[in-house]
């Protein structure tokens, strides 16, 4: 299983599946942050976007994800102020330029992005920026992998582990894994090398710790400075993943000291009746029990232009990658 969405895209884009022998099957995992964000949090951001005086800031992919009834893109066309930012720090610039408005950032992402957002919160606190808050919808990768290896309906023989997340958390964070795992880079040859390493480990029935193919970037201990910032602001909590359900300790919530930055508490957003789109198989695809072409909506009712589920929207989503680059 390739855990990370960027790997899924690289595999599809380079047609790697077509180069592999039939006894090696690559399964896409839960590593697309937009995809695993449950409907309630998407609905919450849309609900906040509708409130006058609010500016929603987000990374690009999120804007087109369909909520239960509408999307941020549609709300924007109707007049809501929704802005795509490339760095969470941009939110503080907007907050300072528009002191009369509330800036709400949709905090979606894994350990790759969450430290930068934690850093932004620290900066906001230091500079006493009061009109900035974050919807905390962050996810942690290791608890999700643990859940996958323990699930009865999912059969995975090895993991291609995410390169960028691992640069932050380090190879040691996967010490619980009982099946082979290799942290891979994102070029075609990196991924092929990682697959070769995994196959050797499987054949040798080896129980060695996680190996690093992406040696130029990933260290066993990760990036302790980033981890420190992350856990200064946030603490782990149980979290709901689309399709997979609640996984213990797999999300992040604000520590009490920083709770003034929690948009859900600040604005008392109460979302009820959040519903996953009918017929959408994103949940099964994120668990690896279905491939995108096995979804009955894939390429028919659900396309990148008229997406039903988030896996077709996000550039890292498995459905989008299969649709764009074909099943090879």
């Amino acid at each position, binding site marked *: 299983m390739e855990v990370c969405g960027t790997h899924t895209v690289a595999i599809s884009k380079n047609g790697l599946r077509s180069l592999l022998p039939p006894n090696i099957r690559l399964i896409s995992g839960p590593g697309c942050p937009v995809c695993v964000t449950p409907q309630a949090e998407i609905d919450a951001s849309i609900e906040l976007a509708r409130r006058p005086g609010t500016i929603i800031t987000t990374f690009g992919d999120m804007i087109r994800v369909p909520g239960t009834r509408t999307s941020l893109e549609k709300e924007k066309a109707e007049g809501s102020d929704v802005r795509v930012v490339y760095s969470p720090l941009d939110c503080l610039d907007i907050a300072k330029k528009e002191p009369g408005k509330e800036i709400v950032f949709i905090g979606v992402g894994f350990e790759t992005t969450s430290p930068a957002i934690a850093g932004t919160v620290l900066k906001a606190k230091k500079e006493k920026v009061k009109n900035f808050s974050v919807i905390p919808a962050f996810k942690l990768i290791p608890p999700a992998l643990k859940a996958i290896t323990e699930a009865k309906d999912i059969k995975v023989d090895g993991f291609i582990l995410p390169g960028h997340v691992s640069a932050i958390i380090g190879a040691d964070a996967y010490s619980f894994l009982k099946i082979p795992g290799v942290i891979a880079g*994102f070029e075609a040859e990196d991924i092929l090398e990682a697959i070769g390493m995994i196959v050797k480990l499987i054949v040798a029935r080896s129980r060695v710790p996680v190996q690093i193919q992406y040696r130029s970037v990933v260290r066993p201990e990760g990036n302790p400075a980033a981890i420190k910032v992350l856990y200064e602001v946030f603490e782990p909590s149980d979290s709901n993943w689309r399709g997979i359900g609640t996984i213990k300790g797999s999300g992040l919530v604000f520590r009490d000291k920083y709770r003034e930055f929690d948009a859900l508490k600040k604005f008392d957003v109460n979302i009820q009746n959040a519903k996953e789109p009918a017929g959408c198989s994103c949940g099964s695809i994120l668990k690896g029990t279905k491939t995108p072409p096995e979804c009955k909506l894939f390429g028919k009712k659900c396309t990148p232009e008229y997406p039903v589920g988030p896996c077709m929207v996000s550039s890292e989503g498995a459905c989008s990658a299969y649709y*764009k680059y074909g099943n090879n």
Partner: protein
Amino acid sequence: MAIIELSHGSGGNKARNIIKDIFISRFSNPILNILDDSACIEGDLAFTTDSFVVEPVFFPGGDIGKLSVCGTVNDLAMKGATPLYLSASFIIEEGFEMEALARIASSMAKTAKEAGVLIVTGDTKVVDRRGGLKPAPQIYITTAGIGKIPKGIDVSSKNASPGDAIVLSGTIADHGISIMNARNDFGFKGDLKSDCACLNGMVEAFLSKDVRVLRDPTRGGLAASLNEIAEASKVSIVIDEEKIPVLPQVKAACSLLGLDPLHVANEGKFVAFVRPSYKNKALKAIKSLRLGKNATIIGTAERSLSGVFIRTKVGSLRPLGMLEGEQLPRIC
């Protein structure tokens, strides 16, 4: 109630549906329905129009004025026409700086002179400042152009034929990435500059009866242009990933932003489909010019497959589709 969303303007199927359902169904006529970059009228005249809404107005490698002349000149050149006359219309929000307007006009004058065209008519409208999401007052420019198609030249997206060689005139994705960098202040340190340029000089250098298709891959990038050609000509296209020139700094920026250079806009490049017997001569003529020094043959038109395919650097063959539901800020 259905309303226009930004993605309706992104050049994918949503945009194509608007053109088909709202416009073609009402404007339909044999000249329009060909849907090339320029309309062919009165036998040997090419006629086209384009609007420019780029933000920021001034960017490394050009500005909205230069872009508005190059864009229309290039639409004419892609029909094999010699561009002759342009119109220029300005919609300006109140508050726009007079000095900036003068700079834009100077840039248009300089670009028009270099391209050998005259701006012969125009219009100016000033509108309320819309405010909204854009903090600074905006300017929008529409240009239209007329050019003359030389005798014996028949260039069209529907003329590609199996066996044709595909020549790309230089590096891709420079414009789109430079605009994104300028707009968002990513602070990429490399030399990122729009490739914005008039292409008529280069086209004249190799235009002959052996040139079947010319296309400048603007919005939607090289991938969109090749798909449109494959569909219009009913051929398949196979290109070689390793042959496609991308500047290292552009490649690095693309990889950081998660973009595929094949889908990123260009404003000073073309692809030409030429008869196989003419390919070396065409390539030599293009490469002899400053703007064409990185030109290369990237692939061929074929009969056997259906659609556009790219041979990856690891040897696999994958389909190359159009970008749909674009996420990027508007870049042209």
